[in-house]
């Protein structure tokens, strides 16, 4: 599971991102691309000092400005499990 495919799999899910400018952004991810550019929906943007909050309906974040993205805890395990199931299915089909 490459980092960018994990990000891809997080589409529609709530994310928390920290920018290099120390601002944090919480919202639901609509889409992402290979540059890590993101579009988000229902966004709350927290200033670097954590004292100001801005609410936005939609937002575009340029990938180069991102420090890290926090994805839901269970997503990674869920994908790993799904892949294991698929692999098992494929193996069974190949065996038939």
């Amino acid at each position, binding site marked *: *599971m*490459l*980092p*960018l495919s*994990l*990000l891809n799999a997080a589409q529609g899910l709530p994310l928390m991102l920290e920018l*290099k400018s*120390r601002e944090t952004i919480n919202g639901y991810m609509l889409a992402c691309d290979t540059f*890590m550019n993101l579009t988000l929906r229902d966004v709350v943007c927290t200033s670097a000092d*954590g004292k100001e909050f801005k609410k936005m309906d939609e937002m575009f974040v340029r*990938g180069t400005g*991102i*420090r*890290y*993205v*926090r*994805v*839901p*805890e269970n*997503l*990674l395990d869920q994908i790993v499990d799904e892949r294991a199931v698929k692999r098992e299915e494929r193996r069974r089909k190949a065996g038939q």
Partner: protein
Amino acid sequence: MNDIDDGLMPLQVFTTAASLLELVDKKVTLSLRNGRTLFGVLRSFDSYGNLVVQETVERIYLEGKYAEADRGVLIIRGENLALLGEIDLAKEEELEAKHAGLEKIDFDQASDEFAKRDEKLKEDFLEKEQIRLQAGLFSNLVADHPYRF
């Protein structure tokens, strides 16, 4: 280090991002370029050095104190990474013993103190830089530049 010794390829073939291959699923420590330190399990990486880290904990160490906060699953953009190292599980107990001697404080408070210390570093650097420039010298970026800004 490399287990892949089939006699066909020289050892230590992987030198760039691929050298992280043997650290996958291991407990690692990360230093980011902003000076923050993370601990977690490395799950994946790509050629940009982007990482996926699970069960991440962020720790701030100050003099005689420390603070930590859970960060869950993180996708870290590679360019922010300064250092990544494997944690020796045998020595982890020692680390925990050291923690017992430190006072655990609130993360937000530690974060503020850390930011202040950072600000101080920045001021000191700019002051030295000013002296150097006045003396007609080149700036000494390598020796003094606190990498975080």
